[in-house]
């Protein structure tokens, strides 16, 4: 028969949730954790290696819109759909070409990936009316799509254009499904999660996590992307960050992004 105690606990918990307005266990702590044992995930992009890789690929394929392995891996792992119409096509990770805004000097172009910056002060979580977007103690900014109402305020607020809205049912744009990650539904916003499934699973096993893009980059033997815990001074990412000039995107808006871009032109 039913375990009466548990029934009451569960029922009581949900009752309390209904009346208090918030789930007792769902409250996300404000800000990332101060606890030194809780990691703070970040990503470092070596812009030079990235540029090298993309240029190489463009040359090889002749396609200026080529998707490098990191983007392909991201799309595949996270079930990011592909639609013909660029206007409606969601993209978590994308490669952009930059050049100094001075045509006269013929500046050199460089390429770098754009993805969710998992900011320390995420504008999206700030504006989300349902707390569907929230920041985990380890710094990962997540969307609880169960709660998302699809108002797209976060897309307006995000300074990095990292978010995509599902104008269509994503399953229509998928040819392959990774069962580990849910495909989202029509009418919600989605974005890069630092492959949170991989991160959580690795943490459970006590290993160092490696998101799909980072893994793909490593397997493609470019090592342009590094993922790790910046709180740990001995982590690879911390070490690498000490070796060059590291910038953040749009530091002026004060969101304090945790995807760092490293510039060092190491000429042979």
């Amino acid at each position, binding site marked *: 028969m039913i375990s009466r105690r548990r029934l009451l606990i569960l029922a009581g918990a949900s009752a309390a949730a209904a009346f208090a307005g918030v789930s007792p266990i769902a409250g996300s702590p404000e800000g990332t954790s101060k606890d030194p044992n809780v990691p703070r995930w970040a990503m470092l992009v070596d812009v030079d290696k990235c540029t090298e890789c993309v240029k190489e690929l463009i040359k090889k394929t002749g396609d200026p819109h080529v998707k490098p392995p990191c983007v392909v891996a991201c799309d595949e792992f996270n079930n990011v759909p592909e639609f013909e119409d660029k206007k409606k096509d969601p993209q978590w990770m994308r490669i952009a070409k930059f050049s100094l805004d001075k045509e006269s000097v013929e500046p050199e172009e460089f390429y770098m990936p754009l993805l969710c910056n998992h900011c320390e002060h995420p504008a999206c979580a700030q504006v989300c009316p349902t707390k569907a977007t929230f920041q985990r103690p380890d710094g990962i900014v*997540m969307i609880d799509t*169960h709660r998302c109402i699809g108002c797209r305020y976060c897309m307006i607020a995000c300074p990095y254009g990292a978010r995509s809205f599902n104008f269509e049912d994503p399953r229509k744009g998928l040819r392959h499904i990774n069962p580990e990650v849910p*495909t989202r539904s029509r009418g919600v916003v989605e974005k890069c999660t630092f492959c949170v499934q991989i991160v959580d699973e690795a943490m459970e096993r006590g290993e160092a996590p490696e998101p799909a893009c980072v893994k793909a980059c490593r397997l493609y033997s470019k090592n342009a992307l590094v993922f790790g815990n910046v709180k740990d001074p001995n982590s690879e990412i911390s070490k690498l960050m000490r070796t060059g000039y590291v910038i953040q995107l749009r530091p002026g808006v004060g969101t304090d992004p945790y995807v760092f871009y490293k510039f060092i032109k190491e000429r042979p």
Partner: protein
Amino acid sequence: MYSTKYVIAAIIIFLAIVTSPVWYDMASGEPIHPKLAKPTGAHCVENTEWMKAHHMLLLKDWRTMHVREGKVLYTSQTYGDVYNASIEECFKCHRSETNFCEKCHDYMGAKIECFECHTYPELVEEYNK
């Protein structure tokens, strides 16, 4: 004036409405209870009887644990063993969504929203052919 014909019509309509489930059920010829796919495995996460009524509460708690708190593991309160707090865990025993979840929910007229986003074995199979 007795307006007998209207009264008789009214009684017939009343009877028809009140007894409609009886006729409907008899005419439909559906079995009283649908045959659900048998799960593999010794037991469910919790007591089966309890799961029948409360599975969605459990899933909801799992979802809060997993998504918002990053806790991945759940310890069964009945059996004490540990499970991945994920809907994928269900499909380890319940190999079929269509013949288990959907069938029973169809029977009950309850909508399942999980699989608008979450995947299930049949769907993955269909896509990854």
